[in-house]
Every structure is written in structure tokens, then in C-alpha cells.
């Protein structure tokens, strides 16, 4: 039997995707790109690096990266902010969760270009003057992690969960924290941590 096929990776063509998407979800990006002459080549060949400025933890960071770079890879590989983790790269595990304009977002499914002009908060941006954020302290107090790999995403998600008003009961916390997988299964401790930190976070 002879069989000729491509490798196991899908034949999904990212050039075609970028071109096809120009008329739909990526309109704001291309619109922004078109506004600046320097970005014109990017619209023609997505493999050419583009200039992106990301606002991360209150500071502007200028980058010159492949247009397909995700916020996650921009943080990890280009800004050396490795607190946000890659667990699936498909938005299935939540390890990469950051806050973008105070909303929790899976940074692996967000292009860096699409996050320009928005306020990105990562795990590195929570503690101030060596004082831990109440959610960080609550995670320690309640031993809400083991290996720690999902923890940055859990904490970012937990802060948003509280601010969304989804931390009013244990059942609510369980439901609204279910986008973040913890393979060590520290779940009951995570619920306890969110409960502990919620009042302080709501106080502001």
C-alpha cells in the first residue's frame, strides 16, 4: 500500500488565514497597520517582522517580531517575562492567562498585534514593593499549588473571577475557575484561596 500524505500537522495554511481573515476578525490590526507606512510590508508578507508596542505591567515595550507572534510568545520569548506559561497553546488549559484591560484572556490565542494599545497585566505585575497581591498570599496560605506551573494563570484568572463577581459562593468559584487546569489537582485549595482573597480584592 502506498500512501502519500502530509505530516501529522494539519495542512492549515497561516498565510491563507491571514489573508482571508483580513476582511473579518483581524480588521482592526490591518487597519492599524495600514495607518503606519512602516507596517505596509507586514500586510503583504506576514513572515516579515513588524513593530509592535505592548503595554505590559504599566510599561511600554517595543518589539520587532513575526506578525504571528502571540502575546504569550511575545512575553516569554521576547520580553523575558516567563511567568505566563505555555501548557497547550490552544486555549484549553489556562496556564497562559493574563489580564488584558482587566479581562482574563488566554494569551496563547491572542496575537501580540491585536493587544497593542491595551493594558496587559501578567503575574510579574501583581506584587508591589515586595508586597504580595492578596491573591498570591492566599495561594500560599491555602497551599493552592504543587508543581506551580499552572499557578500564574490560576492567580490571574482568580483575580478576574473575583472582580467579575463570580466568587460569591464555592460553587460559583468552581465553575468560573474551571478554565484553568491544575493537573496536580489543588482545586479545593484554589477555591479556599479565592474565597480568602475575595473580600480584600473587592475592598480595592
Amino acid at each position, binding site marked *: 500500500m502506498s500512501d502519500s500524505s502530509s*505530516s501529522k500537522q494539519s495542512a492549515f495554511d497561516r498565510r491563507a488565514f491571514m489573508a482571508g481573515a483580513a476582511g473579518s476578525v483581524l480588521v482592526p490590526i490591518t487597519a492599524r497597520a495600514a495607518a503606519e507606512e512602516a507596517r505596509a510590508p507586514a500586510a503583504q508578507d506576514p513572515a516579515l517582522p513588524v513593530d509592535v508596542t505592548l503595554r505590559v505591567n504599566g510599561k511600554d515595550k517595543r518589539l520587532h517580531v513575526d506578525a504571528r507572534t502571540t502575546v504569550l510568545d511575545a512575553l516569554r520569548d521576547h520580553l523575558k517575562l516567563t511567568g505566563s506559561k505555555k*501548557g497547550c497553546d*490552544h486555549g484549553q*488549559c489556562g496556564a497562559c492567562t493574563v489580564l488584558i484591560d482587566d479581562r482574563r484572556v488566554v494569551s496563547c490565542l491572542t496575537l501580540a498585534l491585536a493587544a497593542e494599545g491595551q493594558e496587559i497585566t501578567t503575574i510579574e505585575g501583581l506584587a508591589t514593593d515586595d508586597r504580595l497581591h492578596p491573591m498570591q498570599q492566599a495561594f*500560599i496560605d491555602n497551599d493552592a499549588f504543587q*508543581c506551580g*506551573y499552572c*499557578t500564574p494563570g490560576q492567580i490571574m484568572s482568580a483575580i478576574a473571577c473575583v472582580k467579575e463577581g463570580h466568587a460569591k459562593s464555592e460553587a460559583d468559584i468552581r465553575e468560573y475557575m474551571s478554565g484553568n*487546569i491544575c493537573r496536580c489537582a489543588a*482545586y479545593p485549595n484554589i477555591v479556599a484561596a479565592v474565597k480568602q482573597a475575595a473580600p480584600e480584592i473587592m475592598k480595592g
Partner: protein
Amino acid sequence: MTAAAPEPKTNMGQPVPRYDAVVKVTGRATYASDMPLVDPAYAFLVTSAIAKGRIDSFDLDDARRVRGVIDVVTHENAPKLKDSKLFSNGGYAGTTIQPLKTAEIAHDGQIIAVVVAETYEAAREAANRVKVSYTASAPTATFDSPGTTVAAATGQNAQFKEDPKVGDFAKAFDEAEVKLTASYETPTQHHNPMELFSTSCAWMGDELVIYEPSQFVYGLKYGVAEQLGIDADKVRVVNPYVGGGFGSRGSMTPRTAIIAGIAKRLNRPVKLVPTRDQGFTIATYRAETRHEIKLGARRDGKLVALRHEGAEVSSRPDAYCVGGTKTTTRLYACPNVDSLVSIVRADRNTPGFMRSPPEVPYLFALESAMDELAVKLNMDPVELRRINDTTNEPISGKPYTSRSLMACFDEAAKAFGWAQRSPQPKSMSDGDWLIGYGCAATCYPTQMGPAAARVRLQRDGRTRVEIAGHEIGTGAYTVIAQTAAERLGVPLEKVAVFIGDSDLPPAPVAGGSNSTASTCSVVTMVCDQIRQRLFKAVMPSQSLTDKAKETVGIGQTPATQAAKGDRPLDLEKAFDALGVGVVEEYGEWKPEGAPLDSFRAMHSGQVRLVGGHAMKDQIAYAFGAEFVEVRVNRFTHEIRCPRLVGAFAAGRIMNPRTARSQLMGGLIWGMSSALLEATEIDERNARYVNDNLADYLVPVNADVADVEVILLSEQDDHINPVGVKGVGELANVGTNAAICNAIHHATGQRIRKLPVRLENIEV
């Protein structure tokens, strides 16, 4: 104190917060792929789309044209690597299938090419543009597939030496008053640790540094050196934090030497972060198993005959097996026992350790069968265990070093409210929900391995402990720091611990729940060497009782010692008397009964674990009992598990906080193995179908409600100097049976194949 930090009972340490807590909640813990590299090239794997056959040709033109591509490495131009033997045959590898060596394909998802590029995005695009022509033949997927070969495990797996048996099973079963014969199945499962199977390799001259999540840095160091044909002294593996292991990172995978070889050729660091789906085929997994249990008993419940036959799937070249009969034939008193383990070969990647490798599938069978027998006998399943409890294992009569099985059952039953259970199936309900209570025993062998450590003490009490242990989430940093602080009598915050680096003194694989027992035993021993030096320097040895030498703090006077008149050691004086700035000691420890070559093996990345049933005059296991409540909706058949209660006795508990967390996670893993986890196999193509975290179901927060962990006080002086049995793999054993037993109680339906999904319920 929060629920996370239980009050220590007798023979338990303090529930101090994790040593690595702050770095882990601030994102500063550096996992392998977080390590900074200077100008790395990015690698992306291409994996096989067929499970059996050969590669006829590649068309790499499109891939090479992608801007930024540096090289596409296939078997035609890959760095030449030496083979490594399977770990169980004296090697380091978790598989002997070596990709990029020939055109042959041994399993689906085998690495067939590596694209290296200036950016991750370019490497990924080029990998997607690699075109492959194969000649494929029909693969064998699993049990019952055409083309499997079946043979007894004994004789093919060096670590499975014999099928335990005693007495005359056939006769006893034949004559038994009550008999049970039942078959069980467990599915393929993948560890899916959160951290991907990444590898970064950087050469400095002829020296290689590997950043990779590993549960055995020494094994990886020696294994990669062997494959590259270089001196192991030139290889260093660094991973101070590992994003979960669960067994998947215990033995070497082929990717590491491949990436190291490519980095050498490019003279540039290479970083590989494989995808989640690639992790299903480039590492190991828990193979599917089948079981037949035969139990014969007297009317009063006493077992007279037990037979356990198990079959496990492995790859074509490697006879991997877990052989859990070594445990199930020894758990209960029974004079006539027989067993057999077989290995079924298919066109699959080689399976490997996954959390409690033998016990999860094999105790599912035995503990389900015990429940079935209890139903036949019209007996409370807890009482059936009590009647068959034993102080000596039945195969060779060796005594258990300690065994708190029934104490665990009684504590857990009380906490759970087992007395409120009405024994008849389908007799408890709440509205649309049928309620079932079930229970099962758990046990896990106590294992230890040779280990070395270096401890340095400064005159201000600052202490540095070095040992190539592993922090995979277990709390290794924490319990090592606690051990040194207690032993030297210095404040915990003055202890710095360095682990996860093969330049440190060797420790065993972080597997088989041996780490705490092994590392804390050697750290205790080396701290005592320091104490001896200090005490000798400042006082004649006879002025101090032996007991005081062991217990007096350095630089402080514990109240109890002061009352007895023992003097504390003045650290400043001792250092002055010694005339040194620091005191540093190195030591090597091996457990009793360790083979003669233990230390040599330890220094060459080989594992020599002892314990469990393999001890000379005794047998050492940790025990527990688990109780679960399930609710089955009588209309939708939805299954929920609102309560899990486990009581565990595992010798000394170094830290009730980290121990509770591990056991809690274990209980949830156990629930998951009953209700959620299974890797689905496309039998036509011998391919894993649900190879991602959306389709491979792992528990999320909403799947888990009340989980109660009860730590029993237990002291065992026969196992190792610290009296630790290990808790990493105890709690996820037996839970699967407890849940099926509860489903039977709720619905009257006995389910013998995992996982149980709503479509399996026929109320």
C-alpha cells in the same frame, strides 16, 4: 490555621508553607523553557502520520523556502546517535525506538523530522510544509487487534522476575463455598503534566547544558552522554522546578539527544517546545490493561483462593510492564494464590510509568472484586477487608513492617458516615439522584534508593543543602529544608536548598514515591556528620550522651534538653575551636538491603530502588482507605462525585501541608481515572484520537467538590532512618474501584471497564 495546614499529630513535622511558595506565586520559578538562552534557534517537530511502515521520501522544498528556516533534519541528515537500552535492561531510555535513525516507522506520532528556524513561528510554519511519502502497512493498535503477539511477562522483562503464587489455587478454588470470577479493563491514559515536554540544549565548547523537565537528572545526563558518545562529565541537566511529572519524565525520551546533536551542529542553543498533542507520542503513557480475578471464600468471608491474571499492552521492541500482581497477591491473607502477567505487543509507542503504575490498574480489579464478593456474601465490604486483614504477606510469609489498613478504614468510615449507608443497591436517593456509597483499600510499596548530599553550615547558622533531587510539586525543597533545619537546629529560614541540577550530589529518580525517604535520609546522615565534627571540636565526646548528640540543637537549647542538663552547642565557639569559616560535609547513604553496586550505579545514572515486597525479611507498604459518594441521575445518567474521603498511614509525615495536598491531588486523580480519563485509540490507524486537553478529559475545578484527607499517625522504624513511607502515589490507588463500587450501590449495575461515562449507565 487553614484546612491546608493540618495540625500535626504524633510523628509528623510542622505544616510550614512551601519553600518555593513565593517564587511560584510571583512567576519567578524558572521551569526548563523559562531559562534564558543567548540567540536560540527554535525547533519544531514533525511527527509521523502513519503507525507502521516506512518513509519513502520527503519533499522539503516548501519547508526550506520559509523565511528564517535554518535546517530541516530528517533520518537522511540527522546527527548520528548511539542507541540506549531500556531503563529496565540497564539503560536510560523509556523506549528503544530511536527516531531519525532509519526510514522505518514504529508508531503513530513518531518524530520524523525536526525543523530549526530563527523564530518559533517560522519553525512551525515550515514543519507544516514538510511533505512526506510513506509506504504504510496495517498497524496493530491494541488488545484483540489482528497482529498482536502475547507472551508471559516473566522472561521478557528483567524487572518482572516471577508470577507470585503459593499453595494450591486450583483445588482451593474448586472447593470454595463462595466463588467469584470477574474480568476488568482499564484504558490507556496520558500523564499530561502541565509543562510541555520541552528541551533546550546549549553547548559551551564541548560542554552541554540541558534544560528539560526531568524526574531524574542523573539518568538523563548519563543517557544523553551515552547517545552522543561523550563523557558524562561534559553534560549537565538543570531543572530547578518541574511542571508536573507523574512518571512521564522518569526515563529519557529520544528528543533530548536529537536536540543536543542539532545544537552542536549549529553551534547555537536550540529550544524545543513540542505541542501538547506531540506529547502523547514522543513520551510514555499508561497502557491499557485487562484482568481476570478469581476469588474463593468461606461463607464467613475468609479468602481461601485468589487468582489474578493481568495483561498489558506494550510496543513491539520493548517489554514494558507494571505487573501489579506483586501487590494484589500480597494484600490480603489467603493460603492459595496464583497469578500471571502477560504482555501484548502492538504498533505503539512504548508505555511507561504513570502515577502508581502497577497499583492503579491492578487494584481496580482486586478492589472491585472484593466488593463483588462482599455483595455475594451479603457482608459489609469493610468487614470483608477486616476478616482478611493480615500482619504477614501470604506469598512468603514476611511480616509487614507496619500496616494500618484497618485503622484507616475505621477512621475514614467514621468521617464519611459509612454507618448511614443502607446496604441494598438502589436504596438511597435524593430527588432525581440515586446515591451510592463505596469504598476500597489503597496501598503503595515503600521504596528507597541510594542518595548523596552535601551540607554546608556557616557560623551564623546559614545552611546550604545540595542534592540532585527534583521538585515536581511534591514539596521536595520544603521537606529537605525542614530536615536540615531540624537536624542542625538552625532556623528554617536560614536553610537554602539546591536541587534539580546534575552537578549536585546524586539522588534517585523522583518516582516510586521514594524521594522524601531517600533524600531526607541522606540529608539527616550528612547533618549528623556536621554535628559530630562540631561536638568533637568543643567537648570531649564522653561529656555528651549519645541521645543528646542526636537531639541537641546547635546554637539553641530546646527546653526539654536543658531540663536534662545537656548543654547546647555554641556555634561560634565550635567554629573557633575548629578554626574554620564553614563546615561542609558530603555523604552517601544507601538503604538496608541495597545491592552491592548501589553507589556505583548511583554515580552513573542508574536506579537501584529497594523496598516493597522485595525486601529480604520484611515487606513495606503504606496503606489507606477511601470512601466515596456518587450520585447518578436516574434520567440523564450523569455521574457526579460530591465527596471523597481518604485516610492514610504512611510512616512519618514530614510536612502535613504538602502531604495533604499530594494525597488530595491523588484522590482527585483516582476519581478521574474512574470517571474521566481515557486516551481513545483509532484502531484502524493505531492513533490516539483525543490528543489534547479539551478532548482528553482531566478534572477541572467544577468536577471536584468535597475532598477530605485524614492523616493517621504511624511510626515505622524498620524502613529508613527517617521512617518515611511516601505519599505521592498512595491516594490515587483504589479510588477507581471505590467509585465503581459506589455506582453499583447507587444503581445495582456493576461496571468493570473504565472510565465510566453516562452512556455506560443502564438504570
